[in-house]
Every structure is written in structure tokens, then in C-alpha cells.
């Protein structure tokens, strides 16, 4: 009888989460240090734009309130405390909202985009890699390799612009149906059919609440940025799948499988695939970092209201609160993603002893 989460797995998860703590501390130190190098700490707490007209008294107030006159390590201590309590500061670049609120607003948008990108990458990348490997050196293989080589060499932001030019501008001036230029959803549609927020994911929410106009609009808006973001990861997964598939097909157990009289299909999809997926899954975890970086660029081009755009704006305007906030968040997300990847890895390969 199998349990849903065997004991070893549970212990493993707990252990990994505990190990996170020193790394998180290190990260918080890094973000703390960096943010203090950027701009004036006092200015960070001033409502946007009031830098010129403040009075000495106000400066003193701010310094006292945020412990800016105390030694650095004390400031770090207060910082860590605040984080734990949920006070991640104020985002000056985002209308002085608390950082936590900004995250709540922008994270779902980025997550939705990233999720679409991952799904597309896996759904297209794995089959493409398999085909490329099983039809090695034939035209299908060469075409796929060219496609994926381009994918890892192409600048995402340029590709995004290219997509906009082709699927928005060219289609539009030629009187053909075209895809939206930017944004997450059509504002008019949102206003006339207001969306009830359940998860913060427009696509999911619109399905749940049966809001078809918003669903269509969201879907059409996510196509171009989703694909722009996905291309590089798709290419990476295809390449990885191809090389690990080739490696697996050379193994002895494949010869045994053939000697049983199993058909080509069964040999590939039952015997080879599971083994070949293992390194691919690992690569996906690493690729996730690239997705986050790519999200920054994609969101800028498509004016997607997500973390990437917020982060860029924050850095460009020295919004310290925001910078510390999202840096910490991104690092956490990345680490959690890697943990998930490790778990999937263990689920695929029975040889991994999680102890």
C-alpha cells in the first residue's frame, strides 16, 4: 500500500526547508547591503517627489522612526524583524503602497505569464526533443536544432518587438485579425464586465466566474508575451531532451527491451522516456531562473503589469523598499522552484534515496 507522501519524502521536504534558512539569511543580507548602496535611505521613506521641500524636522522624524541613526547591524536586525512581521516597507515607485500590497498586485500577473511559458515550453519542447533524437540527422532533426539554437541565441526583448510588429502592426494594417499590442487585458472589456478576483489569475478567474469576454481578452493578450517568454526555455528543453534521449537510447536496457520484441513506440515511450526526463526536469529548474529574468524584459516590452515591470521601475527610481522586497521574493521563489524540481526528480527516479 503506498502513501501519498511517503515518510522519507516528508522528512526530506522539512530538511530542505530548514536548510533554506541560512541561504535566506544570506540573501537578505545581500539585498540589505545593496539597497543601502542605492540612493539616500532617508529619501526612501519620503512620499514620492517631496525630496526638495522637506524640513529638517521631518528628516529627523524619519531617521528616528526607521532607526537610520543606529549602527548597521541594528538596522539589519530591525529589517529582519520587519520582514518576519510582514512589513516589507513602502514602494515609492508604486504610489507609496506597502511593498506587500504591490507584490499581491503584481505577482499573479507575472506568475500567470511564467506558468503559461513553462507549460508551452514543456508541451512543445519534450515532443520536439524526442522527435529530434529519434530522427537524428534527418531533416526533422536539423530543423529542430536550428529552431532551438535560434531560441537560445535570440534576445527576448527583440523577439518580443518582432512579434508585436508582425502580429499586431502588419496584421492590423492589412485588415486581418490581429493580436493585442500590450497589456494584460482590454480595459474596456474589464470595465464593462468587471472581473471578480478569486485567485488573481485573470484566466482562471474568468473561467470560474463564467466571464467569457474577459476570458477571451485575457487569452488573446497572453499569447504574444507568453510565446516570447517561452521561446528561450522551449529551446533549452528541446536541446536537453534531445541529448538525454540520445544518451538513454544508447543504454543496454534498451537493447534488452528490443530483444523482448517490443515495438519501437513502446521502447521509446515506456522504457526510454522516463529515464530521459530526469535530466530534463533538472534543466527546467535552472531554466526557471532564466524565465524570471526574461519576464522582466517581456513585461517591459508588452507593458505587462507584473513584477518585472515594477522591479525595473523601482530600480530606475531608486525605490529601495521595492528593491529589497522583490529581490527577496524572487530568490525565495527560485529556491522553492528548485525544491519542487528535486521532488519531481525523486518521484521519477526510484533510485534516489531521499534520506
Amino acid at each position, binding site marked *: 500500500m503506498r502513501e501519498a507522501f511517503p515518510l522519507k519524502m516528508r522528512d526530506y521536504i522539512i530538511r530542505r526547508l530548514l536548510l533554506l534558512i541560512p541561504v535566506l539569511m544570506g540573501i537578505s543580507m545581500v539585498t540589505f547591503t545593496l539597497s543601502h548602496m542605492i540612493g539616500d535611505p532617508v529619501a526612501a521613506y519620503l512620499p514620492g517627489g517631496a525630496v526638495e521641500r522637506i524640513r529638517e524636522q521631518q528628516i529627523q522624524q524619519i531617521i528616528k522612526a526607521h532607526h537610520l541613526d543606529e549602527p548597521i547591524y541594528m538596522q539589519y536586525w530591525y529589517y529582519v524583524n520587519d520582514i518576519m512581521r510582514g512589513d516589507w516597507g513602502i514602494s515609492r515607485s508604486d504610489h507609496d503602497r506597502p511593498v506587500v500590497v504591490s507584490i499581491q498586485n503584481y505577482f499573479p500577473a507575472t506568475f500567470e505569464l511564467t506558468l503559461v511559458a513553462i507549460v508551452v515550453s514543456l508541451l512543445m519542447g519534450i515532443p520536439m526533443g524526442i522527435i529530434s533524437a529519434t530522427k537524428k540527422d534527418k531533416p526533422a532533426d536539423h530543423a529542430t536544432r536550428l529552431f532551438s539554437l535560434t531560441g537560445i541565441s535570440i534576445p527576448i526583448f527583440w523577439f518580443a518587438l518582432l512579434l508585436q510588429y508582425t502580429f499586431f502592426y502588419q496584421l492590423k494594417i492589412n485588415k486581418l485579425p490581429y493580436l493585442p499590442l500590450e497589456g494584460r487585458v482590454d480595459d474596456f472589456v474589464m470595465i464593462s464586465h468587471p472581473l471578480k478576483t478569486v485567485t488573481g489569475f485573470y484566466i482562471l478567474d474568468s473561467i470560474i466566474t463564467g466571464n467569457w469576454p474577459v476570458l477571451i481578452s485575457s487569452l488573446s493578450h497572453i499569447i504574444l508575451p507568453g510565446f516570447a517568454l517561452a521561446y528561450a526555455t522551449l529551446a533549452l528543453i528541446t536541446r536537453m531532451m534531445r541529448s538525454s534521449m540520445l544518451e538513454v537510447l544508447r543504454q543496454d536496457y534498451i537493447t534488452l527491451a528490443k530483444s523482448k520484441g517490443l515495438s519501437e513506440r513502446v521502447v521509446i515511450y515506456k522504457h526510454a522516456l522516463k529515464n530521459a526526463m530526469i535530466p530534463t526536469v533538472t534543466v527546467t529548474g535552472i531554466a526557471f531562473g532564466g524565465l524570471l529574468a526574461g519576464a522582466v524584459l517581456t513585461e517591459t516590452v508588452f507593458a505587462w503589469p507584473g513584477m518585472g515591470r515594477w*522591479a525595473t521601475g523601482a530600480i530606475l527610481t531608486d525605490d529601495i523598499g521595492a528593491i529589497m522586497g522583490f529581490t527577496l521574493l524572487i530568490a525565495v521563489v527560485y*529556491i522553492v522552484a528548485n525544491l519542487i524540481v528535486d521532488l519531481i526528480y525523486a518521484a521519477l527516479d526510484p533510485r534516489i534515496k531521499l534520506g
Partner: protein
Amino acid sequence: MAELKSPLRMKSGISKWREDMAPRVRELRFTIYLLRQSPLVVAGFILMFAFIAMAIFAPWIAPYGPEERIWEAKLQPPSSQHIFGTDESGGDIFSRIIWASQLDLAIAVTVVVTAMAIGSAMGAASGYLGGKIDEVMMRITDIFLAFPALILAMTIAAALGRNLTNLTIALIVVWWPAYARLIRGQVLSEREKLYVEAARAVGAPTRRIIFRHVLPNSIYPLLVNATLDLGGVILTAAGLSFIGFGAGAGIAEWGRMIADGRNYLFQSPWMATFPGLAILLSALAMNLVGDGLRDVLDPRLRR
């Protein structure tokens, strides 16, 4: 012990060196032969050399100077006078792309070489010394590797100030941990090998062991990674410049040019198209070469 009078005189200096090098030269020739097998790899090398040549010979190739502006000729589509057209202030895009290659390639090479040097030194020290130092180094690299490259570079570049020099520094800081990890791994695995035991038994000092034995064997993965990273740095640097973290307005840098071109994307698409192609082709070249090297230098696939 009787005096050994060898009938042959001991080979001196150069001829001995040539003899020592002979097996290495043979390996090199075989490597080049293998590389020539794949047309894609050959294309990659040609592209790579083309870009390098473009950067070196820029002053002689570019029809117009980097800062040349002909206001009357602004926003012109590609023509015989301006092969790739002109931008919003009348600069010839073709020339600017060539001038920009100097900048982008210089940044890429600087970052990779420096990161490799720093990373290798740290990694070798960490791997060889082991113990607490190694643990600390691992945690440090963990922290750096926990951030996606672009985002970390963004933050550092912002902290230091937004210009090209700081961009380069930021990229070096982002890229060195990977090399440290790589070299450390190599040192650890080589350390277990018997010839190191042998060298130690003869009394060779640590430094000598690392330099003469460990590093030469690490050259292959190092070379492959360095080549692939050249492409990666070009892409990241361009991306950062695009958002506004590197080259300031008007500077001839590929990413910057695309950002400028974005404002005129629909009316004058050539402004953004060609610099992007330059990035694509140079990164492609690096990836092709890196891939080719990796396939060829893999000891299992040779023979």
C-alpha cells in the same frame, strides 16, 4: 655509479620543447579535423571570426563615424547610401552597428575573462584547501546563484550607478560564481586521482600541483563554458542596456539601439531590426562554437 655517456647528445631548448609538445599538437590537429566535420560548427567559427574582425577593423569598415549625424537624413529606410537606414537623429545604422560591435564584444570578453580568472582562483583555492573555507565559499556561491543573472546584475548596476563600466563590473560579479563552482569540482575530482598522490609523494608543492596538473585538465570544460558564456553575456548586457542600465542615450550599443528603435517600431522598423540581428548572430556564433567544442572535446565521443 658509472658515468652514463649517452651516444645521443641531450636535446637542448627548442627542439626538446617541440618534442614535448608533439602529442599535444597531434591532439589539436585531430580536434580541428573533428570540428570541420559539422557544417554548423564551421559556420559558427566563421561568424565568430567575422564579428571579431568587424570589431577590430571597425574604423576601416564603417562608412560613417560613430557620432556622425546627418539631421536631414533622419529616419530613412535602407538605401544605397545607408545600407540599414538611419535612426531618429540621422545616424547611419549600419555604421553604428559596426561601432557597437567593438563595445559589446569588448564587454563580453572582459567579463568572461575576468570572471573566469577570479572564479578559477577562488574555486581552485576552495577546492584544494577544503574544510571551513570550502564550506563558506559554497554558501557564498549558493547565494549568488540563487538570483537569476539579469536581476542580480540589474540590482548591482543600479547600486553602483548606471553606466557601462559599472555594467561590466556587475556582470563580472554575477558570472564568477559559476566558474568557481566549476573549477572547484574539477579540483575535487582531480585531487582524488592517483597522479596527484604521486606528485605529492615526490614532494611537489601545492601550487605546483594545481598549476601543472589540475588546471591543464580543466581547460576543456572551461573553454566550452567560456565560449557559451560569451554569448550569454552579450545577450544579458544588451538586455540591460535595453531597459536602461548600461549605455546611456545615443551611445552605439546594440541593446541601446533597439531601445531607441522601439519608439519608432512601426514607422521605421529597420532601427530596431538590424541591431537585434547583430545580437542574434553573434550569440548564435558563440553558441555554435561552444556546442561544437563541447561535442568534440567530450572524451567519450572521440573515437
